[in-house]
């Protein structure tokens, strides 16, 4: 049975509507927004290195693994994701990050799908290995407009790939825990809570990283469980370990759980453009 739980269009329509096209347009527009509106430093050399390395490594692995269908779009998405999230003063660090990210898709596999979100894996790998990279969780600032902006863009992608459940479950889990702690327990005012929840980096992660349809569990129930675990862990790492990039670490830790959940909850494997 084809994967069709969220798509009601005809077969030919579905083929034309690759959600990855949306993702590429949106991620690129976020980058543009950051550069123009948020005064980010423009680093063309870094974007080019990330994009070119991503596509080259992707095509190289596809050739080596004799894949018939190319996923260069996924590589571009990963490269755009790293352009938005990962910082480094060294081009080789970014090249390493994207290489490891793409390589992880081919080398770290279980049950026919890769274990880690490629962008997440690349970021964590260079953070741990090089000491020359960092993530700036404050770079978007915080605001309700970001929630609407990222949220509406994400909805257009997620409704197509059927991962809105993952995103909402994570958001609700984290939000409820944060609400209990920040407002009900500590006694801060609501604006403190909203300032935390509307952090742009947090939202980008929520809408565009955790929702990667390939690395999330296949079954809806499993995805709910998975997202709750990540939400809980991110909340813990943020409030007790004081890690400002907590969601990224929570995702990498919980990612291998996908394989376990997929065995427990049997469901159709996701594929782009079926």
């Amino acid at each position, binding site marked *: 049975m084809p994967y069709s739980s969220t798509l009601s269009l005809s077969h*030919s*329509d579905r083929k*034309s*509507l690759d959600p990855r*096209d*949306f993702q590429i*347009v*949106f991620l*690129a*527009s976020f980058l*543009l*927004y950051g*550069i*123009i*509106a*948020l*005064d980010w*430093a*423009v680093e063309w050399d870094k974007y080019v290195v990330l994009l070119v390395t991503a596509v080259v490594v992707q095509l190289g692995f596809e050739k080596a693994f004799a894949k018939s269908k190319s996923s260069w779009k996924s590589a571009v998405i990963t490269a755009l994701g790293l352009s938005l999230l990962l*910082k*480094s*003063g060294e081009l080789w660090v970014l090249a390493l990050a994207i290489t490891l990210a793409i390589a992880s898709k081919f080398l770290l596999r279980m049950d026919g799908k890769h274990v880690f979100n490629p962008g997440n894996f690349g970021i964590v790998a260079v953070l741990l290995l090089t*000491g*020359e*990279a*960092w993530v*700036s*969780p*404050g*770079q*978007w*600032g*915080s*605001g309700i407009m970001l929630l609407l*902006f990222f949220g509406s*863009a994400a909805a*257009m992608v997620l409704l197509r790939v059927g991962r809105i459940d993952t995103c909402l479950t994570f958001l609700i889990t984290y939000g409820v825990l944060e609400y209990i702690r920040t407002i009900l*327990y*500590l*006694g*801060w*005012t609501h*604006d*403190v809570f*909203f*300032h*935390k929840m509307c*952090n742009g980096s947090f939202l980008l992660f929520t809408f565009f990283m955790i929702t990667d349809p390939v690395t999330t569990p296949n079954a809806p129930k499993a995805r709910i469980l998975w997202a709750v675990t990540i939400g809980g862990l991110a909340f813990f790492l943020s409030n007790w*370990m*004081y890690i*400002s990039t907590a969601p990224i670490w929570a995702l990498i830790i919980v990612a291998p759980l996908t394989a376990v959940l997929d065995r427990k909850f049997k469901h159709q494997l996701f594929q782009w453009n079926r």
Partner: protein
Amino acid sequence: MYRSKFWVYLFLLLIAGTSAVPASAFCGFYVAKADATLFNNKSEIILVRNGQNTTITMSNDFKGDVDEFAMVVPVPVVLRKDQIRIARADLFEKLDTYSSPRLVEYYDPMPCMPEYALEVCDAVALSSSRMNLSSMMVFDAATNYGVSIEAQYDVGEYDILILSATESDGLKRWLLNNGYKIPAKAEQVLEPYIKDQMKFFVVKVDTQLFASSGYQELSPIQISFESDRFMLPIRLGMANSQGTQDMIVYAFTQEGRIECANYRTVKIPTDRNIPTFVKPKFGQFYTDLFEKAYHREGENAVFLEYAWNISPTFGVKCDPCNGPAPIVQDMMNAGVDWVDARNGQPQVFFTRLHVRYSRDEFPQDLLFQVTPNKEHFQGRYIMTHAAQGDMSCDEGQAYLSDLEVRRKKEVDELYALTGWKKDNAVNYIHEFSNQKKGEVFPIAIPGNGGKPGGMLMILVLGMVLSIGWWWVNDRRLAI
């Protein structure tokens, strides 16, 4: 067809949006500084972060009766006496002077006498302002209030208590009954800190000791502690304040720049060419520039004003220099404990951040993170003096035309940076026009050089999103 036009437009837009050309190479003199004293309602903090260790030095420019002085700072742990010190007041002045935004000066070479081609440059700097700390103390039985005195020390002219509390109302009453004038709304802000297991570092002045010391000003207090948290609690200071406060943070790390983890850290506009008439008003120029940048960035950003490698073994520590770079002794005074002669080649990176915060725009305390970013940065503004003398040669005439265009751009830049009116700048633009042969043609007005406004951002984003939507739908219809 349309799609390809769109991409061309997008490309042009990108180029336009990012082609704010950085100014020419650095040069060795400095003319004026925009230091911290320009800002009212300002505090200065030195932050040293090494692993889990944090040292915070708080300047103290309290001007009233020292009897009235008191300070309450939430801290994550109970501090030992050896973790509390008095720091030298001149340290702030030195760091401020060293890192404040600067004006540099160039001189055009004489076009008709190329052998005189000289390029001189010069600089001017600005500095920051002092912290707003108020309250006071004498001790009382704490247990009835749910307050515990965890430690009590005399350090320099200060009486210091480390308190923990179980409820905010008790802490507030205890502080009030013991003579601390804490803000009326402090209670609701104390509560979250108490619940978060924070302790309270409470300071008042031993007036007798201070009187006998002969000093006129209170000393900065320095505290060190080990904690995973790298933050500055700003909420308590805003409990009673409706307005804004400025804070300058001077930070030392081993790895690189610090940045704010929960607010945007943006660079203050730099390397801009401005008219020479700004020189005597450079302080005002920078305060207006900061004000405009503060509003443009949404009143909730933290500004980077300076970042430099100041390791003892690192060569050029500023370019141009407003003042001497911190030496090893200064760093040790600030709490940089790894910079020791026996320590091989210690790395020290210095960051200066400037934040204007208000209760509404900064609901959370400032969280920081250390990054490996070692890129140098300085707030630097350039003025170029026109060549003077005989301009009758062809090169001289061409120079005069170029000069008018350049000065027009400088005036536009000044307007973009500060909002200063352009009306008075006509004479400046045409100062040397009378030396031009023949008719003087009006000069085309170049763009303002500023960044696009908020509406444009929205338009661009709307455009990108709608084109994305249209693109996909278009594909769908095409099938």
